[in-house]
C-alpha cells in the first residue's frame, strides 16, 4: 500500500486538526485528496493497511457519540493503529477530575493522537496547548466538527467533481451546529455559495457578516440549491424553545417529496445525522435516490484516516509554530 499512496506533502506541517476556519485552501485540498486516495486504496474503507502500525489513537469522548467515535476507531484500525476508548460517564471526570487532567493521564499511557469530543467550544484548543501528542477535534460544542465538514465536502466533490460555483444550503439549527460552522469555512474557501436557512431564532442575522446568505424561507431558495445539508434540531443544546412546535418546524423546513419535486433534478440531499425522520427529512427523501447520507458515513472513515495519517507525518516540532487559535 505504501507504494501506491504518495508521501504526505512537505507543506503539511500541522500536528492538530482543530477546525476548518484556520486551514488554507491547499490544506483542505490535501486532506480531501488524501481521503480520496485512502478510500480507493482500502477498497471503499473496507480493507486494512499498516501505515500507522504501532501507533495508538485515544478516543476521549466527553459527550455521547456513536457514529463519530466508531468512525474514528475504524479509521485508526484500518491504518493499523491501536485504539483506546474513553467515555466520561463513570470515569474520573464524573468524580470531579477536569477533562484536561483526564486527557493528560491518558496521554501519559503513550498515545499518538487524542480524538476529543466535548460539549464546550474550545476544549480541543486547550488540549492542544496542554498535550504533546496530536489533537483531533471530533466536535466541540456548537463550535466546529472539522472531519464532519470534510466528509460532507468530500461527498459533494465526489458527486459534482468540484465545489467552486455550487450553491449549498445548510438548513436547520444553525445556531447550535458545529457541522454548520465547519461546513461554512470549508465550502466558502473552496468557492461555494453558502445559504443558511432556518427559523430566525436559529439563524441569527449576524451570520451575514461571514459573507453567507441567510434565508428564512426554504421554498424560496430551493430552486437555486445544488446541495441541501439538513441539520438536526439540537434540542439538547437549546435553553429556550426556538419555535412553537416540531410540527410547525417540519411544515416550514422538512425536506419532503413535494419539495423534492420543486428542486433541481440533480440536487444532493445530505444530513450529518442522526436524522430525525419526519422532522428535518421525510423517510422517502432520506431513503430516496438523491440522498447521499450513507455515503457520507463511508467517507467519514476515509477523511479520518487521512487526518490521522497526515497529522502523524507532520514534523514533530510543528506544533510550536502552528497557530491553534483562529
Amino acid at each position: 500500500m505504501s507504494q501506491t499512496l504518495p508521501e504526505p506533502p512537505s507543506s503539511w506541517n500541522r500536528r492538530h486538526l482543530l477546525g476548518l476556519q484556520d486551514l488554507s485552501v491547499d490544506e483542505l485540498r490535501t486532506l480531501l485528496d488524501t481521503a480520496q486516495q485512502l478510500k480507493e486504496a482500502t477498497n471503499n474503507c473496507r480493507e486494512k493497511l499498516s501505515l500507522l502500525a504501532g501507533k495508538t489513537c485515544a478516543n476521549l469522548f466527553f459527550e455521547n457519540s456513536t457514529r463519530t467515535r466508531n468512525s474514528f476507531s475504524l479509521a485508526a484500525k484500518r491504518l493499523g493503529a491501536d485504539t483506546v476508548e474513553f467515555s466520561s460517564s463513570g470515569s474520573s471526570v464524573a468524580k470531579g477530575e477536569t477533562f484536561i487532567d483526564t486527557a493528560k493521564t491518558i496521554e501519559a499511557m503513550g498515545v499518538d493522537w487524542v480524538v476529543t469530543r466535548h460539549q464546550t467550544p474550545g476544549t480541543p484548543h486547550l488540549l492542544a496547548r496542554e498535550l504533546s501528542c496530536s489533537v483531533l477535534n471530533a466536535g466541540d460544542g456548537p463550535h466546529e466538527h472539522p472531519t464532519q465538514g470534510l466528509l460532507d465536502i468530500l461527498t459533494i466533490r465526489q458527486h459534482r467533481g468540484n465545489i467552486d460555483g455550487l450553491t449549498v444550503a445548510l438548513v436547520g439549527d444553525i445556531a447550535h451546529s458545529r457541522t454548520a460552522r465547519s461546513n461554512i469555512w470549508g465550502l466558502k474557501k473552496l468557492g461555494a455559495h453558502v445559504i443558511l436557512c432556518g427559523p430566525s431564532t436559529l439563524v441569527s442575522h449576524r451570520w451575514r457578516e461571514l459573507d453567507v446568505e441567510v434565508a428564512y424561507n426554504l421554498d424560496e431558495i430551493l430552486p437555486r440549491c445544488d446541495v441541501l445539508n439538513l441539520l438536526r434540531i439540537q434540542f439538547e443544546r437549546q435553553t429556550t424553545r426556538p419555535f412553537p412546535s416540531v410540527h410547525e418546524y417540519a411544515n416550514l423546513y422538512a425536506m419532503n417529496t413535494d419539495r423534492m419535486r420543486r428542486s433541481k433534478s440533480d440536487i444532493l440531499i445530505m444530513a450529518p445525522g442522526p436524522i430525525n425522520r419526519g422532522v428535518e427529512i421525510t423517510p422517502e427523501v432520506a431513503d430516496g435516490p438523491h440522498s447521499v447520507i450513507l455515503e457520507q458515513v463511508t467517507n467519514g472513515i476515509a477523511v479520518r484516516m487521512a487526518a490521522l495519517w497526515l497529522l502523524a507525518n507532520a514534523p514533530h516540532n510543528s506544533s510550536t509554530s502552528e497557530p491553534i487559535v483562529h
Partner: protein
Amino acid sequence: MTPLLIENGRLVDPSQSIDRVARVLVTGGLIAAINPDDGDLPPNVRRIDARGRIVAPGLIDLGTELREPGREEDETIETGGNAALAGGFTTILCAANTYPPIDSPGAVEFVRQKAQRARTCRIHVIACLSRGREGVDMAELSLLAEAGAVGFSDAPRPTSNSALLKKALEYCHMLDLPIYDLPLVPELTGTGVMHEGRVSTILGLQGLPTEAEDLAVTRDLRLAEATGGRLHIGPISTLQGVELIKRAKQRGINISASVWPQTLSSMTDKELESFDARFKVRPPLRNERHIEVCREALIDGTIDCISTGHTPRAREKKVNDLDLAPFGMVSLETTLASINTDMIRPGLLSWPDAITRLSTRPAEIAGVPGGSLKPGSPADIVIIDPDIAWTVRGDAFQSRSNSTPWEGKQLFGQATHAIVGGEVRFERHA
C-alpha cells in the same frame, strides 16, 4: 507614629483642585499641612522623596470580593487587603457574597474584626440587601448599618426582584445609605460566557447580550427616580447603558454608576478566540464600539467612577473549559496600571480626573472617609510611579488568586507606597 513628609512629588488632589509639586506633612495619622514651612516640621519626621511620582489620595474600591468566610481558597480578608495596598487602594468595600453571606450583624462584625487584625487597608462592608442573598425579603438593613455596613447589595447577583429593590430603596432613605445593584436580567444571560456578537457566533459560545444589562439599567433608573433612593449601578459595559444613564442624569435622577477596568481596556471579545478562561469575566470583554462609548462616558463624567471588579477565583477553578470555569479576575493590582496604560498615557484622561474617579467620587458615593488630602483628613495616601513598565504575572500578585486577563501584558505605572492613617503599610522596593 512617625510623622511623614512626602516631598518633591506631584500632588494631585481633585478635592482641593491641586495639581502641582508640593509636599505633604502627615502627623498623628492625619494630613497636617500642604507645603509646611521647614520650621513647622517635627524633629523626627521621616522623609519620602516622591520625585517623578504622583502623590494622591489613596484609591477607593467600591466592590471587592474578599471571599472570606467560606471561600478562603480564592481570597482572604488579609490577602485581599494586601493586594489592595499593592494596587494603591487604601480603602475597599467588600462584597457580601461569602459563605455564609454577610446578612447578619455578626457577619459584619466578623469581617470588620478580621480586617482590623490584618492591618492592611481600610475595609468596609457592603452587607446583603436580602436575607441569605436570596433576593426575596429585605435583610435587617438597619441592624446591619448599626454593625457598620456602609451599603447594601446582593451582587454579584443582580436584584431581580423589582419589588424588593423598590422597597429597599425607600427603606434606605432613612438610613441614608446607598444600594449597589449589578444591572443584569439573568433570564437573558442564561449560560452565556462572553459578549454576544459576531465572535460568539463564530465560536459557538453562548453569548451575554447587551440587552440583559440595558433592560436592568432601565428598570433601576426608573426605581431610583420613583423612590429618590441612593442607587449605585455598576458595572456598566454597554453603549446603550451609558446612554440611559446620561439621559437620567440630565433629568436629575440621583444615581451614580461605575465601570470596571476591563471595559475600558484595549481587550475585546476577540480575546475569547483563545478559549482561555482568564478572559471569562463579567461584564464580558465587549467590542470596540462599547469600549469607546464607555471610555467617553468615564471622561465626561456620565460614569462616576472606576471599580476594580476584583473577583478572585482559585487557580483550580479557572483551569477548566469555558462552561465550567467561573467568571472572575483579580484586578486590585492591575487597575491603576491598566487605567494609566489605556486611558492616561494615550491622553484620554488626566491624572486629576483619574484620581477623581478612583478616589474622590468613590468616597463620596460610599460615604466613607478618604478621597481627599485636605488638612485634618485621614492620611490615606498613594504614591504612584506612572512610568514603571512591568509585565503582569498573576503568580507574583499579593492576591491568593492569579487569574487576570492582563496576564503577560505590559502595563505602565504602579503604586510605590500605600499609606493608611499615616502609616506606610505598603512600600514597593525596586
